[in-house]
């Protein structure tokens, strides 16, 4: 660790001992969340999400292709994340590194395993032709908590996605309907992330908190209050009690964020 984070760590932990955070929030409070959908005309679905200063743009593109041999009755989902050099002085251009791949995979799992996209309805000819959904996550401004911003962006973008059947009409079988239709979706799970610094558990870490954090936990919860995905990161550790604290905080914050998501997609 270089010198500046050591000084910041000192400052952040001293504040935490008094129950405070550097930007005046309580420990389980999120920064202001702003969701704007349909921001890219060329994409079939898109959303820009801001959590505090963190800014993420997610675009969804739809293409025709073959299903995977082991799942002939399912459409294909593909998620990629780019930590472009625009977003932070520490991001470099080039092929995605571990951070970007972990981010894309965590978002992908949140979307795939929760079955928020009904992939069986994306089949055109079983085993031969299906719709492919590309989710591309563009990080524009990095001030911490990319996991929550990226997964929220992906959900908002998917919720506004239209399958362009009309544009592909020449490549579709005769009996397949040629009208555009919205991507079939069900209730989305919401990801919430907390970090631990010394013994303090802080939700929605900003950049300064994130770089000194010992350990991180992301929990995705659904509208029924069940847990749908988890990911622990960094080299620190949690106790059982701390994990339960994070899950409870994720449930509470998840409800609020879900409302914001519904508002942004007009649901």
């Amino acid at each position, binding site marked *: 660790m270089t010198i500046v984070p050591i000084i910041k760590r000192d400052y952040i932990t001293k504040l935490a001992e008094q129950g405070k955070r550097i930007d005046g929030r309580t420990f389980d409070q999120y920064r202001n969340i702003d969701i704007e959908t349909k921001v890219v005309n060329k994409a079939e679905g898109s959303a820009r999400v801001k959590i505090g200063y963190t800014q993420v743009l997610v675009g969804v593109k739809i293409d025709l292709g073959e299903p995977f041999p082991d799942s002939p009755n399912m459409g294909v989902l593909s998620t990629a994340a780019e930590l472009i050099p625009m977003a932070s*002085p520490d991001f470099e251009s080039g092929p995605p590194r571990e951070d970007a791949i972990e981010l894309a995979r965590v978002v992908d799992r949140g979307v795939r395993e929760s079955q928020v996209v009904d992939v069986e309805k994306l089949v055109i000819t079983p085993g031969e032709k299906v719709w492919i959904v*590309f989710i591309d996550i563009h990080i524009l401004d990095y001030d911490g908590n990319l996991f929550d911003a990226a997964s929220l962006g992906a959900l908002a973008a998917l919720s506004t996605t239209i399958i362009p059947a009309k544009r592909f009409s020449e490549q579709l079988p005769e009996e397949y309907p040629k009208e555009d239709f919205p991507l079939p979706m069900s209730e989305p799970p919401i990801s919430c992330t907390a970090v631990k610094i010394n013994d303090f558990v802080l939700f929605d870490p900003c950049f300064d908190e994130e770089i000194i954090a010992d350990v991180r936990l992301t929990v995705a919860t659904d509208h029924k209050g069940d847990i749908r995905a988890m990911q622990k990161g960094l080299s620190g550790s949690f106790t059982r009690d701390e994990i339960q604290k994070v899950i409870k905080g994720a449930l509470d914050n998840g409800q609020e964020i879900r409302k914001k998501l519904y508002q942004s997609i007009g649901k």
Partner: protein
Amino acid sequence: MKSDIELINSEGKRSDGRGPHDLRKIKIEAGVLHRADGSCYLEWGGNKVLAAVYGPREAVPRHTQNPLKAIVQARYNMAAFSVEDRKRPGPDRRSVEISKVISEALEKVVLTEQFPRASIDVSIEVLDAEAGTRCAGLTAAGVALVDAGIPMRDIPVACAAGKINGQVVLDLGKEEDNFGDADLPVAISPRTGEVLLLQMDGHLTFDEFNQAFDLALKGCHSVSEIQKKAIMQKYQSAAVEVQE
């Protein structure tokens, strides 16, 4: 590519309703990103472009350093979702070339001799593409450089002219670019008129080139005014905050 598609009618109206010498609608906002040293968001017709500047900072790897002056490294990148058919992420030959010509254009106006061994990094992201992204990107980069406080001789600006159905017009749109006869993107230093970037594809006679070039210069000067307004607006609001 010659085509029978009518891109401009007998009254001089183009397919999107513009006259031959009209620009598409342009919107510029300076200082939109938190982490970057300088940034700019620009909409130009259906193009949406974001530019960010980092630096001057130590150039890495070391062998890229110039002991006499700073290097300017622009990176033009298209988002996978910015085009009709999804583009594979990462640099391709087209974006590497555009990055190079933009870097060279910017290097001419930046006072690089003030920052030996340093790098000034410009990141240009095309979020939504509709013909003319390199001009939009360079124009946004110019504003982002000012926003980052990089000393420059001038604010670089770009605009294209071209030929559709045999007629010279300003600022080609998507269809005009695909089915037109020629495209001529030009970047200048508006104060001196020095040409910083010049490319052409298609077919122009000597006279048509002169017409198109003059038209592109006129376009550059109009866009330059919008750039200056965007910068003034940011610093005016900052000045109001300080007064309060």
